[in-house]
């Protein structure tokens, strides 16, 4: 048997297309040498390396059914993510991955599905939505609750209607509206009562800022969603992504190995600890 490639060695990934989504967010499509497929599970991440700048963990947000077309949505907030976001078609990035333990898309079969996303937190949930819609009959009712800071900060606006048409209830809200916005205003947790799912038979998947996830999980459990079926994706300082460097520890977990997706049942006692 051939040895697995060293997970610390970056592979070449060429940028095929780049699209600016919002003021500070870009979506890149990449392809490995020879268009080699990169099979991944929704919720996993890759380490992207702009040559000589540094590496950053970025969630995979492409379609699991198209593993040769690698899609990443990147918010340009630091030196590395700015360099990734600025990569133009033809540029080559280093790529390691996929890493981590993702969303429970298999466990969710036969259940209702509730997806709650805040801001760029929709990116790691997009593969879940695409997989769910591709196998729509295997799941019960399904709803997406999406909150963004302003209408201009919302991701994938062009796709939301298409998802709605294919059988996903989509509700959106913004913190600050503009004149054109006719939808809800306020935090995403206020959409929860409107989600057409049965709490007792729902698998919930939540991604967004830490505070948003904590309030969402508390609200969901208060409304009868079992904590063992509420899943959150956490962000910490991932450096090696292979459970050897220690940076992404979160209490008893190593997030790159045990996460980034973990259940609220497991996280609840940890989230109340400051600076864990």
């Amino acid at each position, binding site marked *: 048997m051939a040895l697995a490639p060293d997970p610390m060695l970056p592979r070449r990934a060429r940028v095929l297309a780049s699209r600016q989504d919002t003021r500070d967010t870009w979506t890149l499509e990449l392809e490995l040498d020879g268009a080699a497929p990169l099979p991944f599970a929704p919720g996993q991440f890759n380490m992207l390396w702009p040559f000589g700048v540094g590496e950053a963990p970025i969630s995979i947000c492409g379609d699991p059914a198209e593993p040769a077309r690698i899609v990443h949505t990147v918010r340009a907030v630091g030196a590395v993510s700015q360099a990734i976001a600025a990569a133009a078609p033809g540029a080559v990035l*280093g790529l390691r991955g996929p890493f981590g333990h993702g969303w429970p898309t298999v466990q969710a079969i036969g259940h209702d599905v509730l997806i709650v996303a805040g801001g760029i937190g929709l990116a790691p949930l997009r593969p879940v939505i695409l997989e769910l819609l591709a196998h729509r009959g295997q799941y019960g009712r399904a709803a997406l609750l999406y909150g963004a800071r302003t209408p201009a900060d919302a991701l994938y606006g062009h796709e939301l209607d298409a998802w709605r048409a294919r059988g996903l209830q989509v509700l959106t809200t913004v913190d600050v509206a503009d004149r054109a916005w006719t939808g809800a205003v306020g935090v995403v947790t206020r959409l929860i009562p409107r989600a057409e799912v049965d709490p007792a038979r729902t698998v919930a998947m939540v991604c967004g800022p830490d505070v948003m996830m904590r309030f969402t999980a508390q609200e969901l459990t208060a409304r009868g969603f079992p904590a063992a079926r509420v899943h959150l994706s956490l*962000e910490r300082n991932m450096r090696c992504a292979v459970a050897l460097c220690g940076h992404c520890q979160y209490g008893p977990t190593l997030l790159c190995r045990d996460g980034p997706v973990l259940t609220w049942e497991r996280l609840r006692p940890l989230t109340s600890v400051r*600076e864990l």
Partner: protein
Amino acid sequence: MTAPPTLRLARADLDALLDAVRADGWTVLGPTVREEAIVYDRVDRAADLPAGWTDVQAPGRYRLERRADEALFGYAVGPHSWKRALHPADVRLWRASRTADGFAVDDAPPAAERTAFLGVRACELAAIAIQDRVLLDGPYPDPIYRARREATLLIAVQCGTAGGTCFCASMNTGPGVTGGADLTLTELLEPAHAFVVEVGSPRGAAIVARLASPPPPATEPERAAAGAVVARTAASMGRTLDDPARVPAALQETYDHPRWDDVAQRCLTCANCTMVCPTCFCTQVSDTTDLTGDHAERWRRWDSCFTLEFTHVHGGSVRQTARSRYRQWLTHKLSTWHDQFGTSGCVGCGRCITWCPVGIDITEEVRALLAPAAPAPGGAQ
């Protein structure tokens, strides 16, 4: 199968043993005196060992002193651990150059020189076993550690002296060697200076087989004397971690304990404890480029959870305070390490106590954290 032989090696024949180790293709690292400390470095002759030296250790204190005898291993562990050789502080993972089609990575497979560690203590064997768990038994074994680990011969020495900060007996990791070594030596100083040698593996047996004059079996009194050395060391150990079986779960109930504020007043977050710890494994993965920008390298370097940078994410560091960083280190070592790797991260070697510049004692902190709550000032409510 007969039981592995227990042999008697005269002090004068130790050089013959070292010659046999080298003849078998091993470079020997062992304890030697450098800059007023006993550290691990290349040892070619028995004369390179710290004959007649001992160390006096206390919280925040380490001094070498002369012994009344010529013992070669009459001290506890110093600031070095074998981690320096197995999990090096600084290692280049790969280098890359820009090319017409992006970049090309040049990765030499990890190479390791056959190295014999001489004078490995029981706590250090336990530390190596813990690093094996962390670095080899996970989903992605570390190829650098594996190459070095496989090229290592372990020659253990049973401790004849308990250091001033040792607490291995309460951690059940020493002072007696219970396995994992290729050869185990116990130093006897009387009636004659000699070693009782236990063979622990075929590699150890191969070394003994190379000796020109095969050592005789140890006599019953000599074997009893060797056992007494370990018993005496265990009995003289002045420090303990109380109730270690209870510690892992109990510590996870202490996240809001005021003792963390107390220790944060003393802790300098200097990271000394993590550098001297034989099991601390955290590394930074960082990139460098040359001035042309066409050549990049990725380096792995020891890192410490005591640095602010360690938990950096967009928006700042997660662990801003000394309180949270000391709490991370101690709870990881004694509690969450079990969750992550199925073993304790502490072997009771005492290095973190000795080399702490302000003398913070992990056993004392745990005692304070797990003590029954004192009555509130002012008496009953």
